């Protein structure tokens, strides 16, 4: 048995998640937001692993879902960054507060 209680892992991932959300909320750079989202996904992954390790009868399940999450993260990064590049080409900026056409 691993010596760490589940609660600690959960709180750790909660903090990581919160940091990620903070980044997504306050970063001006879109790439910064994407990075923060990676952190959020990572926190979710840790939770998946921890839960499947501690509470699930079939421990491989969490890993499989984590793999799916990682794949989705990779796709989101690829598409997101492609969008960022396209945006940069058109608007010459990657700052969210300079891309605010869609308002009243």
């Amino acid at each position, binding site marked *: *048995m*691993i*010596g*760490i209680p*589940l*609660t*600690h*892992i*959960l*709180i*750790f991932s*909660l*903090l*990581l998640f*919160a*940091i*990620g*959300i*903070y980044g997504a909320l*306050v*970063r*001006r*750079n879109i*790439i*910064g937001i994407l*990075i923060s989202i*990676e*952190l959020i996904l*990572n926190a979710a*992954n*840790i939770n998946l*692993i*921890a839960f499947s*390790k*501690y*509470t699930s009868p079939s*421990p*491989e399940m*969490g*890993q*499989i879902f*984590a*793999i*799916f999450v990682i*794949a*989705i*993260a*990779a*796709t989101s*990064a*690829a*598409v997101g*960054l*492609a969008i960022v*590049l*396209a945006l*940069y*080409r058109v608007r010459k900026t*990657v700052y*969210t507060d300079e891309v605010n056409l869609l308002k009243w």
Partner: protein
Amino acid sequence: MPVLEIAVKFGIYAAMGTVLIFALGVVTLRNLFHCALCLAAALIGTAVIYLGLRADFLAGIQILLYVGAVVTLVIFAIMLTEHLAGKTVRQNNSQSLPAVIGLAAFVAILAALIVKTPWPLQAASHAKISVMEIGQALMGTYVFPFEVISVILIAALIGAVVIAKKDNSGEQS
């Protein structure tokens, strides 16, 4: 060997701490390139935690995909969009304060929830989950999501290429 176990435990806590510090770096540093490197460090730290949780395969995947692919992509994007000189401009917008307050409340609520919930702990087995089990589960029980993921990957690949491609039609006319 209790000493080794303690060492492992300590190692995991240390990894957690490192990850948190680097994660804070990710969201606070002004230089975006440093942020990306911090992200890489945080992700590697997460992989170490996975190792501690006996998820070796996932740790490998984590490093291969996140550090090897995602972070590289991010850095690529940074290099293509930032100017080489990298003037340090303001990186955070004006909503830091409400975000921090909200997050504090969020963390407090969820931490209380985590602490108070009686988790249905199972006696986790010592054995590592072998790659074969994961493979069989992927190809058996979870074959449908697996295929869906592969389709999504293809779609994302093509989509990314199409989006990022320079629009040539305008130049020719």
